[in-house]
C-alpha cells in the first residue's frame, strides 16, 4: 500500500514539471515579444534569457527529483 502511495505521490510531483513549463514559456515568450519590438537589442540579452530560463526550470527539476526519490528511494 505504501509503495502505491509513493507512486501516486510521484505522479503528483510531476505536476511541478507542468508548472515549470508555464514559467519557462513565460520567460521565452516575453523575451520574444520584447525582441520583436527592438530586434537590434535582442542579441545582447540572450545570456539573460538563458539565465531566466534556467532559474524558472530549477523548480521543475526539483519536482522531478522529488518524483525520483519517491519512485526509487522511498
Amino acid at each position, binding site marked *: *500500500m505504501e*509503495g502505491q502511495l509513493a507512486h501516486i505521490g510521484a505522479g503528483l510531483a510531476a505536476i511541478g514539471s507542468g508548472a515549470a513549463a508555464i514559467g519557462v514559456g513565460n520567460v521565452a515568450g516575453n523575451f520574444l515579444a520584447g525582441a520583436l519590438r527592438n530586434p537590434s537589442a535582442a542579441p545582447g540579452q540572450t*545570456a539573460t534569457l*538563458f*539565465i531566466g*530560463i*534556467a532559474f524558472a526550470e530549477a523548480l521543475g*527539476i526539483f519536482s*522531478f527529483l522529488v518524483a525520483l526519490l519517491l519512485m526509487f528511494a522511498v
Partner: protein
Amino acid sequence: MATEAQGAEGGGLVFHPMDQFIVKPLFGGTDVGMFTITNATLWMFLAVLAVIALMVLGTSRRAIVPSRTQSIGELAYGFVYKMVEDVAGKDALSFFPYIMTLFMFIVFANFLGLIPMSFTTTSHFAVTVVLALLVFFTVTIVGFVKNGSKFLGLFWVASAPLALRPVLAIIEVISYFVRPVSHSIRLAGNLMAGHAVIKVFAGFAAIAVVSPISVVAITAMYGLEILVSFIQAYVFTILTCVYLKDALHPSH
C-alpha cells in the same frame, strides 16, 4: 508492493528505462568500491581525452586558414571567453581557464553520452554535485578573499527599506545555499530525464503497432537531446559566471 509494481513495469517494457544509468565495474565482479574502474570512469576519461585531443591537436599546427579541428577549438575558446567577459566582467578573466575546463568537460560528457550504448556521466548526481560544489566553494572563497567582510553585503540588500532587510537577508542566505543544489540537479536531471524518455520510447518500439510512431519519436527526442546537451552545458557555465560576478562585486 513496490517490487510487484516494478515487476509489472518490467513486464510491459522489454527493459527498465533507468537500466542505462547503472554503474558497472568494467573488469569483472559486481562490487563498486572507491577505486573500481567502472563504465563511468571510462566515459569520463574519454571525455577528458576528447577535450585534450580537440584543443591540443587543433592548435598544434596553427594555420592562417584553419583546419576544421582548429576552427572548432577556436570557436569554443572565443565563445567561452566572450561569455566570461560579458557576464562576469573583465576582472573575472583570471578564472577563464577554470570556466573553459568546466564547459568543455560538460559539453563532451553530454555529447559522448548521446552515442548509443554509451554511458552519460553527467546524468549522475554524484558527478554534477562535485562540479557544482567546486564552483560553490571557489566562489565563496574568492568572495571572501577579494572583498573580506564586504562579501556579506550580498545578503544585506541595502536598497530595500530597513524593516524588510532582515527578511530579505534570510531569503538571500537560503537562496545562496540552495545554489549548488539547483546548479547540479539542473544538469543531471535534464540529461537523465531526456535519456530516460528516449529509452521509454525505445521500449515501445518492440510493440509492432506503435513501433513506427516510437521510432519517429526517438529521432525527434534525439534531436532535442543534442540541443539540450549543449544548452545545459551553456547554462551551467553561464551560472558559474553569474555566481562569480556576485563574488567579485557583491553589492546589489
